[in-house]
Structure formats: C-alpha cells, structure tokens
C-alpha cells in the first residue's frame, strides 16, 4: 500500500525522468505505428483488391507473423544492424532509429491483419460497384479506405497499444539507455531488478492507464461500427 502511495506521489510530483520515459515510449510507438500504418495500409489494400498467385499463402504468413515474439523480431533486426550485420554501417544499434525500425516490423503484420480483416468485411456489392466503375487502382484504394474509417482507426490504435507495451525490441535494440532510448517497459524491468518498486509501479500505472485509454477508444470504435 505504501509503495502504491509513493508511486502515485511520484506521478503527481511530475518527476522529469519519469515523464521523459513516458514521452520516449509514446514517440517511439507513434512513429512505429505510422510507418507500419503506411506500409500496412498499402499491403492490406492490395490483398483486398487484387487477386494474384500466392495471395492466400501471403495472407496466412502475415497472420502467423502476428504471433512472433518481440525478442525474435529484436534478434533479427539486431543481426541486421549490429556492427557486423549488412546494415551495420548505419550505426543505428542502441539508437531510437533501431527501436522504431524493430517496432515497425513488429507492428506491420498486426496492422495488415486488422486492416485486411476489416476491408474483407465490406459489402460484396462495394467491390462489384468499384469494379464496374472502371476506376484506377489508386482510386479503388481511396474508396476502400474512405468506406472503412473505423477499420483504419481500429488497426492503428491496436497496433499502437501493442507496440507501447512491448519490451523485447526496446531492450535489445535500444539498450535501455537513460535519457535516450529508455522506454516505460524497459524502465519497469530495470527498476524492478534494482528494487525501485515505487518508480516501477509509477510507470506501470501510467502504462496501464495509457493501455486502458487506447483499448477503450478501440472498443468504442468497434461498437459504433457494429451499431452502424
């Protein structure tokens, strides 16, 4: 109980390092979701609108990749950007770029699966109508996105929530460097092992509040969509 009160006091006091860590997490998650969103949107729309060989296999593959643990993604990206790796010359290891790259790769299958799932549920007459209009592929994409605003928001929020709460990638690629790449989850792991439970709990409370906020928003979107 005392630990919880101290944690709350820490939050209320506006501890600079605590909120810097929260800000770092939010910025990393924002950019990861943005990049995954851009590429995911294109890939999911191609999966939805185009029929091509191996399409079914690729969809299964992407869906399966949703279950890949973050440490595996971290390991793969680590091997690419480590000094001896093919992208080692970039010097990205233990920088925010590395974390964002890893988290984007982690978020990509999540975004694609949510978007593809949502787009596929559009009325069959929608797809028939855009086919008979004879418009360009790009215009078909725009119409598909325009018809599914909640699907887009739902996919991005879900991805943001997953990225925000991951620890493996941030730890392996960011190195948990204070005032630089330390995120909420890596800080929680570190402070717990150091016995700084109050600090860890304060971060845990903030992470929980953020996750709940995102989940509530997502749920509300889904409910509104179902009601419509």
């Amino acid at each position, binding site marked *: 109980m005392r630990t919880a009160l101290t944690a709350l006091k820490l939050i209320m006091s506006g501890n600079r390092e605590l909120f810097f860590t929260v800000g770092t997490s939010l910025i990393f998650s924002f950019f990861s979701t943005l990049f995954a969103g851009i590429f995911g949107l294109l890939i999911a729309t191609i999966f939805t609108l185009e029929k091509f060989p191996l399409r079914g296999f690729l969809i299964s593959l992407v869906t399966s990749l949703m279950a890949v643990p973050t440490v595996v993604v971290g390991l793969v990206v680590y091997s690419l950007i480590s000094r001896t790796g093919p992208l080692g010359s970039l010097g990205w290891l233990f920088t925010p770029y590395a974390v964002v790259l890893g988290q984007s790769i982690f978020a990509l299958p999540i975004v694609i699966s949510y978007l593809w799932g949502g787009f596929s549920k559009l*009325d069959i*007459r*929608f797809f*028939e*109508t855009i*086919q*008979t*209009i*004879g*418009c*360009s592929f790009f*215009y078909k994409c725009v*119409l598909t996105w*325009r*018809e599914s605003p909640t699907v887009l928001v739902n996919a991005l929020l879900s991805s943001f929530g997953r990225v925000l709460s991951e620890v493996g990638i941030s730890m392996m690629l960011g190195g948990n460097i204070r005032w630089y790449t330390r995120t909420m989850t890596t800080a929680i792991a570190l402070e717990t092992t150091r016995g700084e439970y109050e600090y860890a709990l304060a971060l845990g409370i903030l992470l929980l509040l953020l996750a709940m906020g995102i989940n509530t928003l997502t749920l509300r979107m889904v409910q509104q969509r179902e009601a419509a």
Partner: protein
Amino acid sequence: MTPKPLYKIQDLKVGFNGRGELFHIPRLDILSIDPVAVLGPNGSGKTTFLKALSGLLDVPTGTILYKDIFIRSYGKRYSQEVTYVHQHPYLFRGSVYWNLLVGLHPKALTPEEKSYRIHHTLDCLGLSGYGERNIEGLSGGEAYRVALARALVREPKVLLLDEPTAQADSEAKKIILEVLRQVACKGSTTLIFATHDKTLGEHLNARILRLEEFAPCRY
C-alpha cells in the same frame, strides 16, 4: 444491312451454388439498337446473366464476346463502357453528389462540366436538390435512382440494370421509365435489364429474352 451484334454469346452455361445448371444459352446475339428485357421467374438466373455480361462473374463454360472481343480481354476499358446497377445498389459513404462524382471519376471533364452533368442527371431522375443529402437517409427507391444516376452520368455504352423499378413507388416508376425511354431513344446507350414486369419491356419496346426458355427442364 443487319447491324453487327454488340454481344455474341455462345454455349453459355451458368450454374449457381451447386444448384446445377441455371440456364444454357447455345447462341444469342444482342444488337446495339434495341433495349433487351431479361424476363424470368425468381431464381431463373436473371441477375447471374447480367453479372456475366458485366464481367463481374467468371463464366466457366461458354464465351461472351463484346464487339467481337472477349470481355476479359477488354480489361478496364470494358468497365468504362459497361455499367451494372444492382437491384439493391451499394452507395458510397457520403453525399449523393459524391456518389455521382465517383461515377464520373475517369472522365476528363472540368469541375464545372462535372457539376453540370451531375445536377442535370439528378434533375432528370426527380432528385433535384438531393445533391448535398447524405445517403443514410434515402429510401430504397431513392437509393436506386441515385445509383441509376451514378450509372447514367457516366454515359455508358451499355447499361445493365437489375430490376430497375422493383423498389420504386408509382411516381418514381414513371420517372425511371421516362428516363430509360429517353436513354433508349437517344441510341447511344444499349439498355439490358432484368425484370419481373412485362410492361416495362413493352413500354421500352424491348426485345424480350425469357431465361426459362434456356433452362434445362426446370420449369
């Protein structure tokens, strides 16, 4: 001189959802002059026939030639010339005007020309002042007229309509009939429509195509 057929259909066999063969058309030519009314009872394959003509449905057996070319070979140009309107059409999220604007998408027109064409088409279909209305509040009959306007605004070479008057009240039916009659008289668009209503075919002086005549002993 006999005009060249617009569509040449040969040995077209269509089945549906494992219910066996719906119809088998050994040979059929559709000319570009007269409208064609596709008649038949429920389940006779009127919609399937129209979808096959529109290119939305892959036909496993038989050939459909449009201007002597396989419709699949036409590609995007085919869907720019041929437009299909569902019995219960899908309208895009947003306003009536937006829906018609989407219909005009690939056309190289100035915004003023587009606006004129959209408003003129809406006026013809008794939808004056509907441009800014959201599609959410439209009745089934109004939604069909908006979809019909979206198709007409494109000035297609072939207009395929599924039950154009099924959802319309008597007033809307009159308007739709008049518009279709004008389209048929103008001669630049070939009308092919599925209907239960024989009078619709008579009103438009349409060639009658009874699908049950092509059904393999089902009736």
